[in-house]
């Protein structure tokens, strides 16, 4: 597609008008924020691109209420910088934020990082949205207060929609205070030991804000008051035993460990990156499967997991597209809830974009039809499901 129109609205009115124009032209539209997740799932057929990056303004911020409203094209990273001035943040630390991922894009991809262990994904921080549908209808749901059950929550529907239901125009988020102290426990261990130790930290009510297993190291981060974090550090170290390290928040090694997690999730040119969801206690068997399949197909595989959220990312490096395809096929068989987020060149020719559909695929299709009856938005993103 060499001559692709690009719409780049900067206001809600512009966006509505662009949508109306595109609808009149009957174009198939691909929606993009910063483009950090452009490869997720299927590759949409499109005649035009709707780029939200010019919609990057702060709409309102009330530190007392701990809520913020932004245009959906605002990079999360910029928003976090603004909020830091009031010792607040959106409790969301996805790897793609460092690459410039936008707030709207993170909602549309249902993304999250290690603190999903405590705070969930973007769905759990979003309290209101304004969306523009394929027919240029502008609709709002939720609002500006944390607690609100009036009407359906359209934000949930758009969570994970990958640009196929409409365009997120504005997002209202709830905020959390930044902790006064933070520290990381790092314990080199295999997946089964990591799952066991993570469980003991949780059951011991030490309240890690994140538990991650990456590069054969269990990482547990603790946020709180200075005295509280120190006390928990002593108890966590006693549970962890030999080889454990306690790294205060400003320790460079702590930062390096967490950077490695984000690095793995982002992947690099030529890699294949797959996200998977399983029950927490399947983490060790999934790790074993990844190692086995990678060895069998001569591919270099790395994995990071938030075991207690059952959220895993596997990165494949080296080898051919067909070797990657064999590993991804094996992963899909073990965990059908898999999203390929990065495709090594040639891999798309060897694999369908998605594996086994979820049980409620008929409802997904019905929702898609109700919101975008002409299948204009992100056509093929969820193929072959719909």
């Amino acid at each position: 597609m060499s001559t692709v129109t690009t719409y780049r609205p900067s206001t809600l009115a512009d966006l509505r008008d662009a949508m109306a124009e595109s609808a009149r032209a009957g174009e198939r539209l691909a929606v993009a924020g910063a483009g950090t997740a452009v490869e997720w799932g299927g590759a949409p057929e499109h005649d035009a691109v709707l780029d939200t990056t010019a919609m990057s303004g702060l709409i309102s911020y009330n530190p007392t209420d701990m809520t913020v409203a932004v245009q959906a094209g605002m990079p999360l990273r910029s928003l976090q910088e603004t909020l830091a001035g009031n010792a607040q943040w959106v409790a969301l630390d996805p790897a793609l934020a460092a690459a410039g991922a936008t707030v709207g894009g993170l909602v549309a991809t249902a993304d999250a990082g290690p603190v999903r262990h405590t705070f969930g994904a973007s769905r759990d921080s979003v309290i209101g949205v304004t969306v523009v549908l394929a027919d240029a209808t502008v609709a709002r749901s939720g609002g500006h207060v944390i607690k609100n059950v009036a009407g359906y929550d359209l934000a949930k529907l758009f969570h994970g929609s990958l640009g196929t239901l409409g365009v997120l125009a504005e997002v209202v988020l709830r905020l959390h205070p930044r902790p006064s102290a933070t520290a990381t426990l790092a314990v080199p261990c295999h997946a089964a030991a990591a799952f066991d130790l993570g469980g003991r930290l949780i059951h011991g009510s030490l309240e890690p804000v994140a538990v991650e297993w990456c590069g054969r190291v269990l990482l547990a981060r603790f946020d709180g008051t200075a005295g509280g974090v120190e006390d928990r550090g002593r108890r966590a170290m006693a549970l962890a035993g030999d080889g454990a390290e306690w790294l205060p928040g400003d320790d460079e090694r702590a930062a390096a460990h967490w950077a490695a997690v984000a690095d793995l999730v982002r992947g690099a040119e030529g890699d294949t990156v797959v996200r998977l969801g399983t029950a927490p206690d399947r983490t060790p068997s999934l790790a074993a499967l990844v190692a086995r399949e990678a060895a069998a197909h001569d591919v270099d595989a790395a994995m990071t997991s938030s075991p207690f959220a059952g959220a895993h990312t596997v990165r494949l490096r080296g080898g051919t597209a067909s070797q990657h395809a064999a590993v991804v096929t094996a992963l899909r068989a073990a965990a059908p809830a898999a999203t390929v987020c990065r495709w090594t060149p040639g891999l798309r020719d060897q694999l369908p974009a998605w594996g086994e559909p979820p049980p409620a695929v008929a409802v997904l299709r019905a929702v898609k039809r109700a919101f975008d009856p002409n299948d204009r938005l992100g056509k093929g993103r969820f193929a072959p499901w719909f």
Partner: protein
Amino acid sequence: MSWSAELVEALGRENVITDPARLRTYECDGLTGYRVQPAMVVLPRSAGEVAAAVRVCARHGVPFVARGAGTGLSGGALPVADGIVISLQRLRRIMEVDPVNLRAVVEPGVTNLDISKAAAPYGLYYAPDPSSQQVCTIGGNVAENSGGAHCLKYGFTVNHVLAAEVVLADGTVTRLGGESPQLPGYDLLGAFIGSEGTLGIVTQVTVRLLAKPAAIRTMVADFATVAGAGDAVTGIIAAGIVPAAVEMLDNLAIQAVAASTESVYTPDTAAALVVELDGPPDDVAEQFDEVQEICRRNGSTKIMVAADAEHRALIWRGRKAAFAAVGRISPNYFVQDGVVPRGRLAEVLGRIAAMADDAGIRVANVFHAGDGNLHPLVLYSEGEGQHDRAEHLSTQIAELCVELGGSLSGEHGIGADKACSMPRMFGQDDLATMLRLRSAFDPDGLCNPGKVFPTPRLCGERPGPYRPHPLEEAGVIERL
């Protein structure tokens, strides 16, 4: 065969109620001012029987309303006259408590508190705790996205449910969510939770369990003015503290609670704040001192710290029984559930007091101050003919919350009660877009009709006109 005969055949005569005297039990939920007798009540014993009942309804175009314990406060389980009620009271098995994966699988008729009781031997609990948790069911919590006193820190039902088996409006059974929250596709589970029974019937729920916090500290701080208590709440939040709960009671509510012999509240204080912190012991101790200091700085006249678990339970019993206690000082009352941005608490309370004076009606306030979720109790006497005036005031209060940039409902739901106020909060396109979701799940509109969305039949031929949201007027949000 008629639909009623088909239902009897599908479920067995002993699981079907048609006797008018027995049907009366089902004619309302906790919102007792609205009553409709259904044509039939069915009592399925399994998900399969729920699906069978729904299939009969779908074939014959009969509307159906799911019902748990009937404790809802917005008429969400109000029956439809020519339809049936599907009671989920017999689906009350706890299928599994899984301490390793930190979750439990339960049927919808299990009470909220029984989940925590089942998890307790493992040191775990289910976090959302609506005041009615001893009787309300998890199925109803899913329908209403119930909150409770601790949702400032822990969130709502939607943040604690991982998966649900649901019966759709055509009688098919499907699963929303999964083993992990990291799933591809639209978050149908998230949209389903809080849809007030209009998208389907939940027949099994997988909930997340949390480890019990190592320490819990609770205090009651008295204040000479409601504004002083409000300022203290602002101060606590500004200090970067996220309490497990911050509840406020005004004097009228305290009087109602104090009429019970075991009350621990000071009867003549203008306002009381219940502040609870939980978490690791050292973190909690440090912040608990800070909260007391903030209360004193904001003019607290007395601080009572719960000495032990029993004392804490007394504080909470008083708070959670406040609605019922109001019955001691007023023959009838309406509860409202509006939310305002926390910064506008003092303003909204002042305006409610003025509106109450104008109407000659007393309003007691018990509410979740931490998240701005009000529960004004509009006290009236049916016998003295105050019903209509009280109902009008109650609606005015909910709509005032919207005017101040908030919401009609924080946790009780819109139901039949506030459906006609929805156009105050949402424009036509917003509601029409929500209805697209409904049509995807329930194209024939058989699933709990007459709830959430205004209809001419419910609201008169002219539903209230849309008025610009104040945030729109301020240029904060736009409507095109």
